Protein backbone atom coordinates (compact mmCIF):
# COMPACT_ATOMS: atom_id res chain seq x y z
CA UNK A 1 0.00 0.00 0.00
CA UNK A 2 1.36 3.31 -1.04
CA UNK A 3 -0.07 6.61 -2.17
CA UNK A 4 -1.42 9.56 -0.30
CA UNK A 5 -4.55 9.87 1.73
CA UNK A 6 -7.39 12.38 1.58
CA UNK A 7 -8.38 14.21 4.76
CA UNK A 8 -11.49 16.36 4.73
CA UNK A 9 -12.38 18.49 7.74
CA UNK A 10 -15.60 20.39 8.35
CA UNK A 11 -16.30 20.88 4.67
CA UNK A 12 -19.22 23.17 3.84
CA UNK A 13 -20.71 24.19 0.51
CA UNK A 14 -23.55 26.66 0.51
CA UNK A 15 -25.73 27.43 -2.52
CA UNK A 16 -27.92 30.50 -2.08
CA UNK A 17 -28.42 29.78 1.61
CA UNK A 18 -28.85 26.06 1.17
CA UNK A 19 -26.07 23.94 2.64
CA UNK A 20 -25.49 21.17 0.12
CA UNK A 21 -22.53 19.90 2.11
CA UNK A 22 -22.86 20.73 5.76
CA UNK A 23 -19.74 20.05 7.80
CA UNK A 24 -18.38 16.79 6.45
CA UNK A 25 -15.36 15.09 7.99
CA UNK A 26 -13.82 12.32 5.95
CA UNK A 27 -10.57 10.39 5.95
CA UNK A 28 -9.63 8.10 3.11
CA UNK A 29 -6.48 6.11 3.71
CA UNK A 30 -3.92 5.56 0.98
CA UNK A 31 -4.83 2.57 -1.17
CA UNK A 32 -8.40 2.50 0.06
CA UNK A 33 -11.42 2.08 -2.20
CA UNK A 34 -13.99 4.25 -0.49
CA UNK A 35 -17.58 4.28 -1.63
CA UNK A 36 -19.72 7.37 -1.04
CA UNK A 37 -23.38 6.51 -0.95
CA UNK A 38 -26.53 8.31 0.00
CA UNK A 39 -29.88 9.31 -1.39
CA UNK A 40 -30.23 11.93 -4.12
CA UNK A 41 -29.35 15.37 -2.84
CA UNK A 42 -27.17 13.98 -0.05
CA UNK A 43 -24.25 16.08 -1.29
CA UNK A 44 -22.05 13.36 -2.75
CA UNK A 45 -21.26 15.00 -6.05
CA UNK A 46 -21.03 18.42 -4.44
CA UNK A 47 -18.43 17.01 -2.06
CA UNK A 48 -16.37 15.80 -5.01
CA UNK A 49 -16.92 19.13 -6.77
CA UNK A 50 -15.57 20.93 -3.73
CA UNK A 51 -12.50 18.72 -3.43
CA UNK A 52 -11.68 19.17 -7.13
CA UNK A 53 -12.15 22.93 -7.04
CA UNK A 54 -15.31 23.18 -9.12
CA UNK A 55 -17.34 24.83 -6.37
CA UNK A 56 -16.27 27.10 -3.56
CA UNK A 57 -16.19 25.57 -0.11
CA UNK A 58 -15.08 26.33 3.41
CA UNK A 59 -13.26 24.04 5.77
CA UNK A 60 -10.33 21.99 4.70
CA UNK A 61 -9.53 19.23 2.26
CA UNK A 62 -5.94 18.05 2.39
CA UNK A 63 -4.37 15.58 0.07
CA UNK A 64 -1.04 14.55 1.53
CA UNK A 65 0.51 17.77 2.73
CA UNK A 66 -1.33 20.01 0.34
CA UNK A 67 -4.49 21.99 0.97
CA UNK A 68 -6.82 21.62 -2.00
CA UNK A 69 -9.48 24.20 -1.23
CA UNK A 70 -9.03 27.61 -2.79
CA UNK A 71 -6.88 26.43 -5.65
CA UNK A 72 -7.99 26.56 -9.29
CA UNK A 73 -9.22 23.33 -10.82
CA UNK A 74 -6.21 22.74 -13.03
CA UNK A 75 -3.76 23.21 -10.15
CA UNK A 76 -5.61 20.62 -8.10
CA UNK A 77 -5.53 18.27 -11.07
CA UNK A 78 -1.78 18.74 -11.39
CA UNK A 79 -1.40 17.78 -7.75
CA UNK A 80 -2.62 14.34 -8.67
CA UNK A 81 -6.35 14.58 -8.11
CA UNK A 82 -8.50 13.31 -10.96
CA UNK A 83 -12.19 12.71 -11.39
CA UNK A 84 -14.84 11.41 -13.73
CA UNK A 85 -18.37 12.65 -14.24
CA UNK A 86 -21.82 11.13 -13.97
CA UNK A 87 -22.26 11.35 -17.70
CA UNK A 88 -19.10 10.11 -19.32
CA UNK A 89 -17.21 13.19 -20.51
CA UNK A 90 -14.68 12.36 -23.18
CA UNK A 91 -13.68 14.45 -26.18
CA UNK A 92 -16.07 12.96 -28.66
CA UNK A 93 -14.46 14.30 -31.82
CA UNK A 94 -10.98 13.13 -30.87
CA UNK A 95 -9.83 9.55 -31.16
CA UNK A 96 -9.30 7.28 -28.19
CA UNK A 97 -5.56 7.70 -28.60
CA UNK A 98 -5.83 11.49 -28.73
CA UNK A 99 -8.01 11.53 -25.63
CA UNK A 100 -5.42 9.57 -23.70
CA UNK A 101 -2.52 11.53 -25.11
CA UNK A 102 -4.06 14.78 -23.94
CA UNK A 103 -4.68 13.34 -20.51
CA UNK A 104 -1.06 12.26 -20.32
CA UNK A 105 0.33 15.61 -21.33
CA UNK A 106 -0.55 18.25 -18.77
CA UNK A 107 3.12 18.82 -18.00
CA UNK A 108 4.31 19.16 -21.58
CA UNK A 109 6.31 22.16 -22.65
CA UNK A 110 5.34 24.54 -25.41
CA UNK A 111 7.69 23.02 -27.98
CA UNK A 112 6.37 19.52 -27.48
CA UNK A 113 2.85 20.80 -27.75
CA UNK A 114 3.50 22.61 -31.00
CA UNK A 115 4.87 19.49 -32.62
CA UNK A 116 3.00 16.49 -33.81
CA UNK A 117 2.85 13.27 -31.88
CA UNK A 118 5.55 11.06 -33.41
CA UNK A 119 4.94 7.99 -31.28
CA UNK A 120 2.58 6.72 -28.69
CA UNK A 121 3.83 7.46 -25.16
CA UNK A 122 4.48 4.33 -23.14
CA UNK A 123 1.95 5.26 -20.45
CA UNK A 124 -0.69 5.68 -23.11
CA UNK A 125 -0.11 2.27 -24.70
CA UNK A 126 -0.11 0.68 -21.29
CA UNK A 127 -3.40 2.36 -20.44
CA UNK A 128 -4.86 1.34 -23.80
CA UNK A 129 -4.14 -2.26 -22.88
CA UNK A 130 -5.44 -1.91 -19.34
CA UNK A 131 -8.78 -0.50 -20.38
CA UNK A 132 -9.01 -2.83 -23.35
CA UNK A 133 -9.42 -0.24 -26.04
CA UNK A 134 -6.12 -0.83 -27.88
CA UNK A 135 -7.92 -2.10 -30.97
CA UNK A 136 -10.15 0.94 -31.08
CA UNK A 137 -7.50 3.57 -30.52
CA UNK A 138 -8.04 5.42 -33.80
CA UNK A 139 -11.81 5.61 -33.54
CA UNK A 140 -13.45 8.87 -32.46
CA UNK A 141 -14.35 8.60 -28.80
CA UNK A 142 -17.87 9.68 -29.67
CA UNK A 143 -18.48 6.39 -31.45
CA UNK A 144 -17.66 4.27 -28.39
CA UNK A 145 -20.30 2.40 -26.45
CA UNK A 146 -21.34 3.88 -23.13
CA UNK A 147 -19.29 1.52 -21.00
CA UNK A 148 -16.25 1.98 -23.18
CA UNK A 149 -16.45 5.72 -22.66
CA UNK A 150 -16.43 5.16 -18.91
CA UNK A 151 -13.33 3.03 -19.22
CA UNK A 152 -11.73 5.60 -21.43
CA UNK A 153 -12.33 8.14 -18.70
CA UNK A 154 -10.70 5.90 -16.17
CA UNK A 155 -7.85 5.34 -18.62
CA UNK A 156 -7.43 9.07 -18.88
CA UNK A 157 -7.05 9.26 -15.12
CA UNK A 158 -4.46 6.48 -15.27
CA UNK A 159 -2.25 8.21 -17.83
CA UNK A 160 -2.76 11.47 -16.02
CA UNK A 161 -1.03 9.59 -13.21
CA UNK A 162 -3.34 10.78 -10.49
CA UNK A 163 -2.90 9.62 -6.93
CA UNK A 164 -6.48 10.26 -5.95
CA UNK A 165 -9.31 9.09 -8.22
CA UNK A 166 -12.78 10.46 -7.65
CA UNK A 167 -15.29 8.50 -9.73
CA UNK A 168 -18.88 9.69 -10.04
CA UNK A 169 -21.16 6.71 -10.76
CA UNK A 170 -18.66 4.86 -12.96
CA UNK A 171 -20.89 1.85 -13.63
CA UNK A 172 -24.18 3.61 -14.28
CA UNK A 173 -25.78 2.10 -17.35
CA UNK A 174 -23.30 -0.77 -17.62
CA UNK A 175 -24.13 -4.41 -18.13
CA UNK A 176 -23.37 -6.90 -15.41
CA UNK A 177 -20.17 -8.10 -17.06
CA UNK A 178 -19.01 -4.59 -17.63
CA UNK A 179 -19.56 -3.76 -13.98
CA UNK A 180 -17.43 -6.62 -12.86
CA UNK A 181 -14.70 -5.64 -15.26
CA UNK A 182 -14.83 -2.09 -13.99
CA UNK A 183 -14.63 -3.29 -10.42
CA UNK A 184 -11.60 -5.39 -11.16
CA UNK A 185 -10.05 -2.42 -12.85
CA UNK A 186 -10.61 -0.36 -9.71
CA UNK A 187 -8.86 -2.98 -7.62
CA UNK A 188 -5.86 -2.92 -9.88
CA UNK A 189 -5.52 0.82 -9.92
CA UNK A 190 -6.06 1.17 -6.18
CA UNK A 191 -2.84 -0.70 -5.62
CA UNK A 192 -0.88 2.52 -5.62
CA UNK A 193 -3.67 5.06 -5.60
CA UNK A 194 -6.51 6.26 -3.43
CA UNK A 195 -9.96 5.73 -4.93
CA UNK A 196 -13.26 7.37 -4.00
CA UNK A 197 -16.39 6.14 -5.78
CA UNK A 198 -19.87 7.63 -5.73
CA UNK A 199 -22.31 4.88 -6.49
CA UNK A 200 -25.95 3.95 -6.22
CA UNK A 201 -25.48 0.34 -7.24
CA UNK A 202 -25.51 -1.61 -3.99
CA UNK A 203 -24.35 -4.91 -5.46
CA UNK A 204 -21.39 -3.20 -6.97
CA UNK A 205 -20.63 -1.57 -3.67
CA UNK A 206 -20.82 -4.82 -1.75
CA UNK A 207 -18.49 -6.49 -4.20
CA UNK A 208 -15.79 -3.90 -4.45
CA UNK A 209 -15.91 -1.40 -1.58
CA UNK A 210 -13.25 -1.49 1.09
CA UNK A 211 -14.92 1.16 3.19
CA UNK A 212 -18.14 3.12 2.86
CA UNK A 213 -19.29 6.59 3.87
CA UNK A 214 -23.00 7.31 3.91
CA UNK A 215 -24.03 10.91 3.38
CA UNK A 216 -27.42 12.28 4.17
CA UNK A 217 -28.58 15.88 3.82
CA UNK A 218 -25.04 17.13 3.55
CA UNK A 219 -23.79 15.36 6.66
CA UNK A 220 -21.98 12.09 7.31
CA UNK A 221 -24.51 9.58 8.54
CA UNK A 222 -22.31 6.58 8.97
CA UNK A 223 -18.84 5.33 8.16
CA UNK A 224 -17.10 1.96 8.19
CA UNK A 225 -16.89 -1.30 6.35
CA UNK A 226 -19.75 -2.49 4.17
CA UNK A 227 -20.98 -4.76 6.93
CA UNK A 228 -20.78 -2.06 9.61
CA UNK A 229 -22.65 0.41 7.51
CA UNK A 230 -25.29 -2.04 6.53
CA UNK A 231 -25.86 -2.85 10.15
CA UNK A 232 -26.23 0.77 11.17
CA UNK A 233 -29.90 1.37 12.02
CA UNK A 234 -29.71 5.04 11.07
CA UNK A 235 -28.60 4.06 7.58
CA UNK A 236 -31.29 1.48 7.29
CA UNK A 237 -33.87 4.04 8.21
CA UNK A 238 -33.02 6.87 5.87
CA UNK A 239 -31.43 5.10 3.01
CA UNK A 240 -31.49 1.37 2.68
CA UNK A 241 -35.02 1.20 3.92
CA UNK A 242 -35.98 -0.99 6.85
CA UNK A 243 -34.60 -4.46 6.34
Amino acid sequence: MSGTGLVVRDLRVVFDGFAAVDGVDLEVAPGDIRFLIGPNGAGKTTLVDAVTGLVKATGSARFGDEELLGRPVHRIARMGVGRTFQTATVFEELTVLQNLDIAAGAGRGALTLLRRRRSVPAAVSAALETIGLAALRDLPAGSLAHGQKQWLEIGMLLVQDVKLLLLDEPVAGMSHDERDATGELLRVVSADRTVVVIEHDMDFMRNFANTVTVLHAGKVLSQGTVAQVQADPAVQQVYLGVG
Partner: protein
Amino acid sequence: MRSLSWRAGAGFAVGAVLLFGVAPFALSDFRLSLLAKYLCLAMVAVGIGLAWGRGGLLTLGQGVFFGLGGYAMAMHMKLADAGPGEMPDFMQLYGQLDALPWWWRPFANPAFALPATVLLPMLVAFLLGSLVFRRRVRGAYFAILSQALAAAMAILLIGQQGTTGGTNGLTDFQGFFGYDLDDPVNQRMVYFIVAGVLLLLLAIARQLMRSRYGELLVAVRDSEERVRFLGYNPANVKLVAYVTAAGMAGLAGALFVPAVGIINPALIGIVPSIEFVIGVAVGGRASLLGPVLGAVAVAWAKTTLSEEFPAAWTYLQGLLFVLVVAFLPGGLASVVRLLRRRRRPPPDPAPVSPAPVVAQEVTA
Protein backbone atom coordinates in the same frame (compact mmCIF):
# COMPACT_ATOMS: atom_id res chain seq x y z
CA MET B 1 1.58 9.71 -41.64
CA ARG B 2 4.21 9.98 -44.33
CA SER B 3 1.63 9.74 -47.11
CA LEU B 4 -0.45 12.44 -45.48
CA SER B 5 2.38 14.91 -45.42
CA TRP B 6 3.18 14.02 -49.02
CA ARG B 7 -0.37 14.92 -49.92
CA ALA B 8 -0.11 18.16 -48.03
CA GLY B 9 3.10 19.03 -49.83
CA ALA B 10 1.41 18.34 -53.13
CA GLY B 11 -1.54 20.48 -52.07
CA PHE B 12 0.72 23.38 -51.26
CA ALA B 13 2.52 22.94 -54.58
CA VAL B 14 -0.76 23.03 -56.50
CA GLY B 15 -1.81 26.12 -54.55
CA ALA B 16 1.48 27.80 -55.27
CA VAL B 17 1.27 27.01 -58.98
CA LEU B 18 -2.29 28.36 -59.18
CA LEU B 19 -1.46 31.52 -57.29
CA PHE B 20 1.94 32.23 -58.81
CA GLY B 21 1.86 30.50 -62.18
CA VAL B 22 -1.70 30.70 -63.42
CA ALA B 23 -3.48 33.66 -61.85
CA PRO B 24 -0.99 36.38 -62.87
CA PHE B 25 -1.26 35.36 -66.50
CA ALA B 26 -4.96 34.52 -66.65
CA LEU B 27 -6.19 37.69 -64.98
CA SER B 28 -6.01 41.34 -65.97
CA ASP B 29 -4.16 43.74 -63.69
CA PHE B 30 -7.47 44.89 -62.27
CA ARG B 31 -8.77 41.39 -61.55
CA LEU B 32 -5.42 40.40 -60.10
CA SER B 33 -5.54 43.27 -57.63
CA LEU B 34 -9.09 42.17 -56.72
CA LEU B 35 -7.75 38.69 -56.09
CA ALA B 36 -5.06 40.20 -53.86
CA LYS B 37 -7.84 41.83 -51.84
CA TYR B 38 -9.72 38.54 -51.53
CA LEU B 39 -6.57 36.75 -50.45
CA CYS B 40 -6.11 39.31 -47.67
CA LEU B 41 -9.62 38.53 -46.46
CA ALA B 42 -8.74 34.85 -46.70
CA MET B 43 -5.83 35.37 -44.30
CA VAL B 44 -8.24 36.64 -41.69
CA ALA B 45 -10.35 33.57 -42.41
CA VAL B 46 -7.43 31.23 -41.71
CA GLY B 47 -7.14 32.71 -38.23
CA ILE B 48 -10.88 32.55 -37.60
CA GLY B 49 -10.88 28.93 -38.74
CA LEU B 50 -8.28 28.21 -36.08
CA ALA B 51 -9.90 30.19 -33.27
CA TRP B 52 -13.53 29.44 -34.02
CA GLY B 53 -13.48 26.17 -35.97
CA ARG B 54 -10.92 24.46 -33.76
CA GLY B 55 -11.11 26.50 -30.59
CA GLY B 56 -14.82 27.33 -30.45
CA LEU B 57 -14.01 31.02 -29.94
CA LEU B 58 -16.54 32.83 -32.06
CA THR B 59 -14.63 36.02 -32.49
CA LEU B 60 -16.86 38.68 -33.98
CA GLY B 61 -14.21 41.34 -33.60
CA GLN B 62 -11.47 40.32 -36.01
CA GLY B 63 -11.96 43.68 -37.72
CA VAL B 64 -10.18 45.22 -34.74
CA PHE B 65 -6.99 43.28 -35.40
CA PHE B 66 -7.31 43.68 -39.14
CA GLY B 67 -7.60 47.40 -38.54
CA LEU B 68 -4.66 47.58 -36.12
CA GLY B 69 -2.40 45.88 -38.65
CA GLY B 70 -3.78 47.98 -41.45
CA TYR B 71 -3.40 51.27 -39.62
CA ALA B 72 0.12 50.41 -38.51
CA MET B 73 1.12 49.78 -42.11
CA ALA B 74 -0.82 52.78 -43.42
CA MET B 75 0.75 55.10 -40.86
CA HIS B 76 4.18 54.00 -41.96
CA MET B 77 3.34 54.45 -45.64
CA LYS B 78 1.83 57.88 -44.97
CA LEU B 79 4.95 58.99 -43.15
CA ALA B 80 7.21 57.55 -45.83
CA ASP B 81 5.21 59.47 -48.46
CA ALA B 82 5.44 62.67 -46.46
CA GLY B 83 9.19 62.38 -46.08
CA PRO B 84 11.36 62.75 -42.98
CA GLY B 85 10.11 65.26 -40.43
CA GLU B 86 6.97 66.08 -42.42
CA MET B 87 3.36 65.50 -41.43
CA PRO B 88 1.02 63.42 -43.59
CA ASP B 89 -1.20 65.42 -45.97
CA PHE B 90 -4.51 64.83 -44.18
CA MET B 91 -3.04 65.95 -40.86
CA GLN B 92 -1.96 69.23 -42.35
CA LEU B 93 -5.50 69.70 -43.68
CA TYR B 94 -7.62 68.68 -40.72
CA GLY B 95 -5.32 68.13 -37.81
CA GLN B 96 -4.49 71.64 -36.62
CA LEU B 97 -1.43 70.09 -35.08
CA ASP B 98 1.97 71.67 -34.74
CA ALA B 99 3.83 68.42 -34.67
CA LEU B 100 3.35 64.75 -35.32
CA PRO B 101 1.59 63.08 -32.36
CA TRP B 102 4.02 61.01 -30.32
CA TRP B 103 2.30 57.75 -31.09
CA TRP B 104 2.79 58.31 -34.80
CA ARG B 105 6.51 58.84 -34.57
CA PRO B 106 7.81 55.29 -34.16
CA PHE B 107 5.90 54.23 -37.27
CA ALA B 108 8.26 56.26 -39.43
CA ASN B 109 10.80 53.53 -38.86
CA PRO B 110 10.02 50.40 -40.90
CA ALA B 111 11.89 48.31 -38.35
CA PHE B 112 9.19 49.29 -35.88
CA ALA B 113 6.19 49.53 -38.18
CA LEU B 114 6.54 46.19 -39.92
CA PRO B 115 6.72 44.02 -36.80
CA ALA B 116 4.06 46.22 -35.24
CA THR B 117 1.53 45.23 -37.89
CA VAL B 118 1.58 41.73 -36.43
CA LEU B 119 2.69 42.28 -32.85
CA LEU B 120 0.33 45.13 -32.03
CA PRO B 121 -2.82 43.11 -32.77
CA MET B 122 -1.31 40.15 -30.94
CA LEU B 123 -0.58 42.31 -27.92
CA VAL B 124 -4.12 43.68 -27.81
CA ALA B 125 -5.52 40.17 -28.22
CA PHE B 126 -3.23 38.95 -25.47
CA LEU B 127 -4.33 41.64 -23.03
CA LEU B 128 -8.01 41.24 -23.77
CA GLY B 129 -7.79 37.47 -23.96
CA SER B 130 -5.94 37.10 -20.67
CA LEU B 131 -8.58 39.21 -19.00
CA VAL B 132 -11.65 37.49 -20.37
CA PHE B 133 -10.49 33.88 -20.69
CA ARG B 134 -9.03 33.78 -17.23
CA ARG B 135 -12.32 34.93 -15.82
CA ARG B 136 -14.04 32.28 -17.89
CA VAL B 137 -15.99 34.67 -20.03
CA ARG B 138 -16.86 32.41 -22.92
CA GLY B 139 -19.31 31.32 -25.54
CA ALA B 140 -21.91 33.93 -26.30
CA TYR B 141 -20.46 36.32 -23.74
CA PHE B 142 -17.13 36.29 -25.50
CA ALA B 143 -18.76 36.69 -28.92
CA ILE B 144 -20.76 39.69 -27.79
CA LEU B 145 -17.80 41.29 -26.04
CA SER B 146 -15.61 40.89 -29.11
CA GLN B 147 -18.35 42.44 -31.20
CA ALA B 148 -18.66 45.37 -28.82
CA LEU B 149 -14.90 45.79 -28.99
CA ALA B 150 -15.15 46.19 -32.76
CA ALA B 151 -17.85 48.81 -32.37
CA ALA B 152 -15.86 50.69 -29.74
CA MET B 153 -12.69 50.65 -31.80
CA ALA B 154 -14.47 52.03 -34.87
CA ILE B 155 -16.02 54.84 -32.83
CA LEU B 156 -12.67 55.65 -31.29
CA LEU B 157 -10.94 55.91 -34.67
CA ILE B 158 -13.71 58.02 -36.18
CA GLY B 159 -13.60 60.40 -33.26
CA GLN B 160 -9.93 61.22 -33.83
CA GLN B 161 -10.30 62.97 -37.18
CA GLY B 162 -7.09 64.93 -36.93
CA THR B 163 -4.80 62.05 -36.13
CA THR B 164 -6.45 58.99 -37.68
CA GLY B 165 -8.22 60.47 -40.67
CA GLY B 166 -11.64 59.83 -39.09
CA THR B 167 -14.19 58.16 -41.36
CA ASN B 168 -11.99 58.87 -44.35
CA GLY B 169 -9.38 56.57 -42.96
CA LEU B 170 -5.93 56.65 -44.47
CA THR B 171 -5.69 56.61 -48.22
CA ASP B 172 -3.86 58.08 -51.19
CA PHE B 173 -0.55 56.26 -50.82
CA GLN B 174 2.25 56.90 -53.26
CA GLY B 175 4.81 54.29 -52.47
CA PHE B 176 5.38 51.00 -50.71
CA PHE B 177 8.88 50.88 -49.28
CA GLY B 178 10.11 53.11 -52.02
CA TYR B 179 8.33 51.33 -54.83
CA ASP B 180 5.77 53.34 -56.78
CA LEU B 181 2.34 51.81 -56.15
CA ASP B 182 0.96 53.22 -59.41
CA ASP B 183 3.27 50.97 -61.36
CA PRO B 184 1.44 47.77 -62.41
CA VAL B 185 4.67 45.80 -61.97
CA ASN B 186 4.79 46.82 -58.34
CA GLN B 187 1.09 46.08 -57.88
CA ARG B 188 1.87 42.60 -59.14
CA MET B 189 4.68 42.35 -56.64
CA VAL B 190 2.23 43.21 -53.87
CA TYR B 191 0.00 40.42 -55.12
CA PHE B 192 2.88 37.95 -54.98
CA ILE B 193 3.70 38.97 -51.44
CA VAL B 194 0.06 38.55 -50.44
CA ALA B 195 -0.15 35.12 -52.05
CA GLY B 196 3.13 34.03 -50.49
CA VAL B 197 2.11 35.19 -47.03
CA LEU B 198 -1.22 33.40 -47.34
CA LEU B 199 0.58 30.14 -48.08
CA LEU B 200 2.86 30.76 -45.14
CA LEU B 201 -0.09 31.36 -42.82
CA LEU B 202 -1.73 28.20 -44.10
CA ALA B 203 1.42 26.26 -43.29
CA ILE B 204 1.46 27.72 -39.78
CA ALA B 205 -2.22 26.96 -39.28
CA ARG B 206 -1.74 23.43 -40.53
CA GLN B 207 1.14 22.82 -38.17
CA LEU B 208 -0.90 24.17 -35.25
CA MET B 209 -3.94 22.10 -36.14
CA ARG B 210 -2.05 18.86 -36.53
CA SER B 211 0.14 19.31 -33.49
CA ARG B 212 -0.67 18.09 -30.02
CA TYR B 213 -1.73 21.64 -29.34
CA GLY B 214 -4.32 21.34 -32.09
CA GLU B 215 -5.79 18.28 -30.44
CA LEU B 216 -5.82 20.03 -27.12
CA LEU B 217 -7.58 23.01 -28.66
CA VAL B 218 -10.36 20.81 -29.99
CA ALA B 219 -10.60 19.22 -26.55
CA VAL B 220 -10.99 22.66 -24.98
CA ARG B 221 -13.64 23.57 -27.53
CA ASP B 222 -15.68 20.45 -26.80
CA SER B 223 -15.33 20.36 -23.05
CA GLU B 224 -13.40 23.10 -21.38
CA GLU B 225 -14.07 21.87 -17.84
CA ARG B 226 -12.91 18.37 -18.64
CA VAL B 227 -9.60 19.73 -19.88
CA ARG B 228 -9.25 21.73 -16.72
CA PHE B 229 -9.68 18.54 -14.69
CA LEU B 230 -6.82 17.03 -16.64
CA GLY B 231 -4.53 19.70 -15.25
CA TYR B 232 -4.44 22.19 -18.11
CA ASN B 233 -5.42 25.80 -17.89
CA PRO B 234 -7.83 26.20 -20.83
CA ALA B 235 -7.40 29.98 -20.69
CA ASN B 236 -3.85 29.60 -21.99
CA VAL B 237 -4.87 27.17 -24.69
CA LYS B 238 -7.52 29.54 -25.97
CA LEU B 239 -5.22 32.50 -25.64
CA VAL B 240 -2.72 30.97 -28.06
CA ALA B 241 -5.38 30.45 -30.72
CA TYR B 242 -6.88 33.89 -30.18
CA VAL B 243 -3.54 35.66 -30.32
CA THR B 244 -2.48 33.70 -33.40
CA ALA B 245 -5.73 34.57 -35.15
CA ALA B 246 -5.22 38.21 -34.20
CA GLY B 247 -1.72 38.19 -35.64
CA MET B 248 -3.00 36.71 -38.89
CA ALA B 249 -5.74 39.33 -39.11
CA GLY B 250 -3.15 42.03 -38.43
CA LEU B 251 -0.90 40.79 -41.19
CA ALA B 252 -3.89 40.64 -43.52
CA GLY B 253 -4.77 44.22 -42.69
CA ALA B 254 -1.18 45.31 -43.26
CA LEU B 255 -1.11 43.79 -46.73
CA PHE B 256 -4.62 45.01 -47.52
CA VAL B 257 -3.32 48.57 -47.42
CA PRO B 258 -0.83 48.37 -50.32
CA ALA B 259 -3.08 45.93 -52.18
CA VAL B 260 -6.28 48.00 -52.01
CA GLY B 261 -4.89 51.42 -51.15
CA ILE B 262 -7.07 52.32 -48.18
CA ILE B 263 -7.79 51.49 -44.56
CA ASN B 264 -10.70 53.04 -42.70
CA PRO B 265 -12.98 52.51 -39.71
CA ALA B 266 -15.70 50.98 -41.88
CA LEU B 267 -13.42 47.95 -42.26
CA ILE B 268 -13.32 47.51 -38.51
CA GLY B 269 -16.86 47.76 -37.19
CA ILE B 270 -19.45 45.12 -36.45
CA VAL B 271 -20.60 44.39 -39.98
CA PRO B 272 -17.23 43.67 -41.63
CA SER B 273 -16.18 41.68 -38.58
CA ILE B 274 -19.16 39.37 -38.88
CA GLU B 275 -18.73 39.19 -42.64
CA PHE B 276 -15.31 37.68 -42.06
CA VAL B 277 -17.07 34.88 -40.24
CA ILE B 278 -19.57 34.00 -42.96
CA GLY B 279 -16.87 33.02 -45.44
CA VAL B 280 -15.38 30.73 -42.83
CA ALA B 281 -18.77 29.16 -42.11
CA VAL B 282 -19.48 28.59 -45.79
CA GLY B 283 -16.12 26.99 -46.47
CA GLY B 284 -16.09 24.85 -43.37
CA ARG B 285 -14.98 26.31 -40.10
CA ALA B 286 -12.96 23.40 -38.80
CA SER B 287 -11.08 22.58 -41.98
CA LEU B 288 -7.81 24.12 -43.10
CA LEU B 289 -8.64 25.16 -46.64
CA GLY B 290 -12.37 25.64 -46.18
CA PRO B 291 -12.14 29.11 -44.62
CA VAL B 292 -9.78 30.31 -47.34
CA LEU B 293 -11.92 29.09 -50.21
CA GLY B 294 -15.09 30.20 -48.45
CA ALA B 295 -13.77 33.70 -47.85
CA VAL B 296 -12.61 34.09 -51.44
CA ALA B 297 -15.89 32.68 -52.79
CA VAL B 298 -18.06 34.93 -50.64
CA ALA B 299 -16.01 38.04 -51.46
CA TRP B 300 -16.15 37.19 -55.14
CA ALA B 301 -19.89 36.55 -55.00
CA LYS B 302 -20.36 39.88 -53.27
CA THR B 303 -18.46 41.76 -55.96
CA THR B 304 -20.21 39.99 -58.79
CA LEU B 305 -23.73 39.86 -57.44
CA SER B 306 -23.83 43.33 -55.95
CA GLU B 307 -22.94 44.72 -59.37
CA GLU B 308 -26.09 43.30 -60.88
CA PHE B 309 -28.56 42.99 -58.02
CA PRO B 310 -27.58 44.91 -54.89
CA ALA B 311 -30.71 43.86 -53.01
CA ALA B 312 -30.33 40.23 -54.01
CA TRP B 313 -26.87 40.16 -52.49
CA THR B 314 -28.22 41.13 -49.08
CA TYR B 315 -30.82 38.39 -49.25
CA LEU B 316 -28.27 35.87 -50.38
CA GLN B 317 -25.86 36.84 -47.64
CA GLY B 318 -28.63 36.46 -45.07
CA LEU B 319 -29.66 33.13 -46.52
CA LEU B 320 -26.05 31.91 -46.50
CA PHE B 321 -25.85 32.61 -42.77
CA VAL B 322 -29.12 30.84 -42.13
CA LEU B 323 -28.79 27.83 -44.38
CA VAL B 324 -25.12 27.04 -44.01
CA VAL B 325 -24.88 27.55 -40.27
CA ALA B 326 -28.20 25.94 -39.40
CA PHE B 327 -28.21 23.05 -41.80
CA LEU B 328 -24.63 22.53 -42.93
CA PRO B 329 -22.50 23.48 -39.93
CA GLY B 330 -19.50 21.73 -41.44
CA GLY B 331 -19.66 24.03 -44.46
CA LEU B 332 -18.72 22.98 -47.97
CA ALA B 333 -15.77 21.06 -46.59
CA SER B 334 -18.17 18.58 -45.04
CA VAL B 335 -19.85 18.08 -48.43
CA VAL B 336 -16.50 17.36 -50.02
CA ARG B 337 -15.65 14.92 -47.26
CA LEU B 338 -19.01 13.23 -47.69
CA LEU B 339 -18.57 12.87 -51.43
CA ARG B 340 -15.08 11.53 -51.03
CA ARG B 341 -16.25 9.00 -48.51
CA ARG B 342 -19.08 7.87 -50.75
CA ARG B 343 -16.76 7.40 -53.67
CA ARG B 344 -14.21 5.41 -51.75
CA PRO B 345 -15.70 3.74 -48.70
CA PRO B 346 -13.06 3.31 -46.00
CA PRO B 347 -12.36 -0.12 -44.53
CA ASP B 348 -15.16 -1.04 -42.19
CA PRO B 349 -14.54 0.52 -38.78
CA ALA B 350 -13.59 -2.23 -36.37
CA PRO B 351 -16.72 -3.70 -34.88
CA VAL B 352 -17.10 -2.30 -31.44
CA SER B 353 -16.65 -5.32 -29.22
CA PRO B 354 -18.73 -5.15 -26.10
CA ALA B 355 -16.61 -7.92 -24.60
CA PRO B 356 -14.82 -6.50 -21.61
CA VAL B 357 -11.25 -7.06 -22.57
CA VAL B 358 -10.42 -5.55 -19.27
CA ALA B 359 -11.82 -8.41 -17.31
CA GLN B 360 -9.52 -10.98 -18.88
CA GLU B 361 -6.62 -8.62 -18.86
CA VAL B 362 -7.04 -7.74 -15.27
CA THR B 363 -8.03 -11.00 -13.76
CA ALA B 364 -5.33 -12.84 -15.61
